[in-house]
């Protein structure tokens, strides 16, 4: 397996009591809650944590994009990736991912990723996502066209990396007379593309198609859902006539390791419950704006829940459902092994800082995971990489 040290960069110094007066930590929580002095300290600490991933043997260090929320302070993840490139030598840098439908000119995404790929001499892995529902409220982009814009932007970006420019792009949403981005990516033909997703059937089918075979990462779901989605990907691949490789199957989860299960639970409890009950919740109207998912998917979703985090979740429930992996090194190892044995999982995206978890516990968690869990599961060859410059 390959291991990603992943960060959401939450704003930790939040007044949770006052924040509860708003409907969500997304979109409507006033940014007057943000104290730049505290926020700047968070950025500095988080970048150190990610940088430590190289020394500790992670295959990839990863960031992501979210807008107008205390949940994550990376509206521009490429800025963090750029800083990480300067602070590291060998580790891969993952931007998981950029929200393609939210931009008005996807070429900017192709350009910025190509810059990062050159600056890192081919260490970049990119993620393509659609953005979370609330980001259609904040960006103003019409969710009814989310899927169309995603596919068009994807096609434009990949084409601009593979086909010599200048060429004209004639889409419904994006039309350009001249697509000719400089620089070209360092890797030939382009950085690996991952698809992190909550697991819609349409997305899995599209990612698994033989011309793409994009690695798929199930994010923040119960173990049962992760297993189901990864199996759907496997069977989609079979229907396309090929056998899925473990490189294509990923899982993103909060993980906390300590000496004993008891101690891990004690230390992780408040930060984890903050993540799921304070940072993540949003009402249905923000989570699933109309058109964001297909009519059929939206109907199915509407039957099982209204909004995200509407019901409070305890640490015990999150462990029980397998949404979070919390415990001794042995417990954590077994949980990941179990999922690997059931699904062929090959990419473990580890959220080792979550919610309000402080720097001391975060650093201990990262080191403990790297020394007592990762070596037992990691591919021996995976730490080495051979990026080839573009021909």
């Amino acid at each position, binding site marked *: 397996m390959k291991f990603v040290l992943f960060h959401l960069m939450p704003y930790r110094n939040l007044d949770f009591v006052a924040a509860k007066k708003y409907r969500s930590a997304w979109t*409507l929580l006033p940014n007057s809650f943000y104290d730049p002095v505290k926020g700047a300290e968070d950025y500095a600490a988080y970048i150190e944590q990610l940088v430590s991933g190289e020394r500790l043997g992670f295959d990839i260090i990863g960031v992501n994009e979210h807008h107008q929320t205390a949940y994550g302070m990376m509206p521009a993840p490429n800025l963090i990736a750029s800083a990480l490139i300067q602070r590291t030598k060998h580790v891969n840098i993952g931007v998981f991912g950029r929200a393609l439908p939210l931009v008005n000119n996807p070429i900017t995404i192709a350009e910025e990723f190509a810059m990062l790929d050159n600056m890192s001499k081919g260490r970049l892995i990119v993620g393509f996502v659609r953005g979370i529902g609330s980001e*259609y*409220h904040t960006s*103003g*982009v*019409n*969710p*009814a*066209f989310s899927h169309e814009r995603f596919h068009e932007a994807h096609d434009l970006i990949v084409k601009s990396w593979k086909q010599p420019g200048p060429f004209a792009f004639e889409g419904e949403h994006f039309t350009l007379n001249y697509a000719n981005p400089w620089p070209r990516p360092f890797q030939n033909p382009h950085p690996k593309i991952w698809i992190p997703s909550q697991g819609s059937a349409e997305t899995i089918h599209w990612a698994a198609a033989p011309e793409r075979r994009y690695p798929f990462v199930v994010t923040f779901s119960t173990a049962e859902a992760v297993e189901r989605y990864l199996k759907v990907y496997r069977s989609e691949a079979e229907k396309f006539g090929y056998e899925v490789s473990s490189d294509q199957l990923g899982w993103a989860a909060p993980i906390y390791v300590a000496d004993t299960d008891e101690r891990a639970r004690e230390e992780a409890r408040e930060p984890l419950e903050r993540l799921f009950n304070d940072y993540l919740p949003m*009402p*249905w*109207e*923000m989570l699933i*704006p*109309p*058109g964001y998912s297909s*009519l059929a998917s*939206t*109907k199915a979703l*509407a039957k099982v829940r209204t909004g995200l985090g509407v019901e409070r979740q305890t640490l015990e429930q999150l462990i029980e459902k397998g949404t979070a992996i919390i415990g001794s090194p042995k417990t954590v190892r077994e949980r990941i092994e179990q999922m690997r044995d059931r699904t062929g999982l090959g990419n473990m995206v580890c959220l080792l800082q979550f919610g309000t978890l402080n720097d001391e516990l975060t650093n201990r968690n990262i080191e403990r995971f790297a020394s007592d869990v990762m070596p037992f599961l990691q591919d021996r060859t995976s730490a080495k990489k051979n990026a080839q410059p573009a021909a």
Partner: protein
Amino acid sequence: MAPTGQVIEVDGVAVGLLRQGKGKPVLFIHGANGVAAWLPFFENLSGKYDLIIPDHPGFGRSDDPDWIRSVPDLAFFYLDLMEKLDLRDVHLVGTSMGGWIASEIAIRNESRLASLTVVGPAGVRIKGVPFGDIFMWSNEEATRNIFLNQAIADRLLSVKPTDEQLDVMMKNRFAVTKYGWQPRMFNPDLEKWLHRIKIPTFIGWGREDKIIPSSYAERWKQRIPHAKVSIYENCGHLPHIEASDALFAEVKTFIDGVAV
């Protein structure tokens, strides 16, 4: 009594519609919530006129074709629908989003129109006077904000919709999003062409409208100076429900007064 629904085809699009009554044709252009029920306002209109209430493409029983993507598309579609049904001297009545659509029809081609009635229309934006955010509100908030009279909201909220009704509500919601999410329930190109409306025009508004403030009525009057404007006191966003009798009386007087 509610008429039996029928389905017609226009431009290859199946369109669900209700039609009842005899007399001058009145084409009712529904708002964002579609046609949920046969209202007393409809009963009254169909008692005097040939009332036609289509479901817009994307809504109710109508198809949702990919190629109809905007309110201007809907306006051209309705010009085709009027041709297809060979309607002449049509009295357009549009509420809320339907007022927006009706106005977009009228600025394009009035040749089949006798009059225009818009009630609490969307479509025009005054900077600094925002609409209520119908996409952020929960169903309960939206229902409570639509009506001033909370007894109506209470009654609607106490009824559990059937699965079929829920499906239609969701379909309608998808359609409103497609047409109105961005720019939010207006067309920046509508206001500058409202002067093209030459037919007799009636503008109605609920004084206590929490979706589109009644102060908008003044702007509409500026752009269509010959329009008659009525503001209904103690009334929210839907005068055809909350001030049904008063609105019907005025609309009837207005339509009957139009020389054809």
